[in-house]
């Protein structure tokens, strides 16, 4: 169980959000500017809340006594533009988060990743030579390589279209199921939210306005939503 309860005051925006997520795919949904990405960054420790609590399966990442650094949180983060390291090959990117001391183990682990995610033919390329879909996949594998306890995805569908979207969707679903890892995913696309999410948290102007099943949202307020977006 993941508990997120944070307050943060910013010059032109205030965040006051409390919600939960489980070992499933939770979609953070809302219009742009509603604070979705900021929430992900607060969970990953890239930004600090003014007060609140962030807890993953009983492990406190942040409260009034604890404030773990990003590298201590075991939270994988896939950025909207992937943020791959352009001077490293795909393989070096993926191995980046794995400590060098257990090389032998990491070689075996790399093998597993290679076969699981079918990236063998990409390993020696540089990120600049990857297609958008390939780069996305590599960014996902890189985030998963250090075996995080939570995976955060920021707008994973924004740069992929058509056939690739459904591939990416099943890819993420597979990861979630095979690894039994909680996934929190940000999107402003309600259709995507419906297609991929198990659970949905709707965010508006820094406040949670719906929390529950994806279908529940559709039944509750589809007309209201259609009017709003």
């Amino acid at each position, binding site marked *: 169980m993941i508990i997120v309860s944070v307050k943060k005051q910013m010059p032109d925006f205030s965040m006051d959000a409390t919600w939960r997520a489980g070992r499933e795919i939770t979609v953070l949904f809302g219009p742009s500017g509603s604070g979705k990405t900021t929430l992900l960054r607060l969970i990953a420790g890239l930004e600090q809340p003014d007060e609140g609590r962030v807890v993953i399966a009983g492990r406190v990442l942040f409260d009034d006594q604890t404030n773990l650094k990003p590298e201590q949180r075991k939270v994988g983060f896939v950025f909207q*533009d992937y943020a791959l390291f352009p001077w490293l090959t795909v393989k070096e990117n993926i191995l980046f988060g794995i400590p060098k001391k257990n090389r032998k183990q990491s070689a075996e682990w790399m093998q597993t990743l290679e076969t699981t995610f079918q990236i063998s033919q990409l390993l020696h390329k540089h990120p600049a030579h990857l297609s958008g879909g390939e780069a996305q996949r590599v960014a996902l594998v890189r985030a998963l390589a250090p075996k995080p306890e939570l995976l955060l995805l920021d707008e994973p569908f924004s740069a992929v279209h058509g056939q690739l979207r459904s591939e990416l969707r099943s890819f993420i679903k597979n990861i979630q199921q095979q690894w039994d890892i909680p996934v929190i995913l940000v999107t402003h696309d309600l259709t995507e939210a419906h297609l991929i999410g198990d659970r949905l948290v709707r965010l508006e102007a820094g406040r949670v306005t719906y929390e529950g099943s994806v279908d529940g949202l559709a039944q509750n307020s589809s007309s209201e939503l259609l009017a709003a977006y």
Partner: protein
Amino acid sequence: MNWQPLWLSFELALVTMLLLLVIATPIARFLAFTRMRGRGVMEAVFALPLVLPPTVLGYFVLVSIGSRSTVGQWYHDLFGTTFAFSFEGMVLASILYSLPFAVQPMQNAFEALDKRMIEASRTLGLNAWQSFFRVLLPGARVGVITGAVLSFAHTVGEFGVVLMVGGSIPGETRVASIAIYEHVENLEYADANAMALVLLAFSFIVLSVVYHYNRRLSRLGTL
């Protein structure tokens, strides 16, 4: 003809460059990322050596590390020699003199680097220091190398500062630029030309090699 000054110039430039790599990168990193109020003032301070005429800068350094200064006396007590008029004194002066040439390209490169790469490295388990060495430096390597090369070249070409601080002692502080000037002063134009030519040729080769590699490095990341 005595080629020792050329060697000394090279040695001075190399030591200065290596030390500046260590000194200028944290300064550049700080200036690139700080949100402190006085940032503009600090940037101005680090750019000051650009404004001061070299002999004036040299004079200030000389006065502050000379035998009448606290630093100079402290150095003398510790090592038994003067700080000014030594290779070490020239290194100090050269570091000050070339600092902006190292800091500014590095700062620009740090500012241009996608901050999310640094954040990504943190979520992948790197602490701030590891991230500095494994993401910021390689990510901004073109700027870092440019800064290093510029400070090297600038140190090879410096004259006023080393003349003031070093005192042109043969074998110790007489670098190529000073030796060339003294050849000219003594109407030894052939010697001056020969040494200037070697200095130019050498600098040209070093700069071309580094810029060539730099170009390849930058292509690697962005093609």
